[in-house]
């Protein structure tokens, strides 16, 4: 089992969600987050005072998947989230030791 975590541009969230549903994903969790990478921040201007805002808003999405499905799901996310401009985000995959579905008590692959 793997956990796929992706940081994407907020306006791409709908596209990625639809693409994942089409690809058969059965669930996902999202969080509104802030951060910076190569894109850096932006400047804001209030009454002549210029502020540099380092952290930009992004969406973090987390998807649990069977190991066999991981490559396909990562491809779906990358294709749906890409604009080609700086700041598109990242996707990474980590191993998961144990998953439990709370309602039924099913374990691991059965719980995904």
């Amino acid at each position, binding site marked *: 089992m793997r956990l796929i975590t992706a940081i994407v541009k907020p306006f791409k969230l709908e596209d990625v969600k639809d693409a994942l549903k089409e690809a058969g994903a059965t669930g996902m969790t999202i969080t509104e987050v802030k951060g910076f990478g190569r894109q850096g921040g932006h400047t804001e*201007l209030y009454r002549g005072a210029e*502020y540099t805002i380092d952290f930009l808003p992004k969406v973090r999405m987390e998807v649990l998947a069977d190991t066999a499905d991981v490559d396909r799901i990562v491809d779906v996310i990358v294709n749906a989230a890409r604009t080609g401009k700086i700041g598109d985000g990242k996707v990474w995959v980590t191993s998961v030791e144990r998953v439990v579905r709370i309602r039924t008590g099913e374990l691991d692959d059965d719980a995904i």
Partner: protein
Amino acid sequence: MPLAAELPPGLELDSGNTAWVLMAAALVLFMTPGLAFFYGGMVRSKNLLGMLMQNFFAMGLLGVLWVLVAFSLAFGAFGDGGFIGNLDFVGFKDVVTSTVTLGDPDGLFLSLSIPFVLFAAYQMTFAIITPALITGSTADRLKFSAYVVFIAVWLVLVYAPVAHWVFAGGWLAERGSFDFAGGAVVHINAGAAGLALALLLGRRKGWPETPMPPHSLPLTLLGTGMLWFGWAGFNAGSALAADGIAAQALFNTFIAASAAMLGWLLVERIKDGHATTLGAASGAVAGLVAITPCAGFVGGLSPIIIGFVAGALCFLALGIKRRFKFDDSLDVVAVHLVGGLFGSIALGLFAEDAINPAIPDGMLLGGGSDLFVEQVIAAVAVLAFSLVMSLAIGKVIDLVIGLRVSDEDETVGLDLSQHAEQAYNVG
């Protein structure tokens, strides 16, 4: 002063004038919530209720104090050329529902055609918003209890005397200076007090290194609209009549705000590269401030010139606090003190006898320099008095109960630490 029973013949209540000033009083009162939102949008969200509360609370405390003592200290002994009123109207004693004359028929004299109690109520709305203007410079760190004591003492010891000097035939009026609706009494006065408190309080934690952007510019724009609307009552109501002077004041008020928005945005766009919504709002308010002393005394293109210059000038005045490193958080000095000084002094240039026979022509209309000099004297006198008195009052309060919230309370925010509430509870 003569009361209703001994009125001179012919002094009658005018229903048109009364109707307009009734409306104008309501309009001016509406400006204080407007100011609350104008400022409230500019603070960080954890301090929004603190800002709204300070402004709304002024409508509570200062209204009551006005009736009890402050109105009498401002408008008693009308026309005496002095420094403060008397105790004739304490507790609104003899503040009657009929018309009165105030002052000395041979000197400075006010003959009302509206109920005296309406005049007192109209002036009350000015006494409420003036101390509230100060809250912009003290944002995010003034203790609520210290604020309550400060505005109460300031109303009695600063606002009432200055109103007497200018609006009630006191020494500045007797010398020959003019202030149609409060350029000196309201804006220079509050601006100087704001400067004093900003100096006493010190900077907000983290200023200026840490960005403290406005949490909601829509609130600020909403407040600006309320102020702009209410300012019609502030300036045109100061004619105390529904006449041509009131109409001229209304027009001047609106057009000066328009021109000031253009002036501010033009300089902002050239200097910083963008025209901002906060700039549009601030520019309009700067124009409203600057036209206040001139509103019923100027005509023609003067309001456009006064407004446009005020907008550009107040934008440039934002640099003062950065240069001298004092944290006038929401720019009370740049907008109200500088705007008020400019408007008060500009009256000495643009005043027009043909618009209002009460005033001589200003320098640009060939009237000589006498008026200009008096305007400068009045502006400097109010600035100096308010600054010194506000420093003294603030310092005493600081020594006795402390002006500033604790470090922890400042970090938590005024909403929770001062009022045990939050502006935005999510979910």
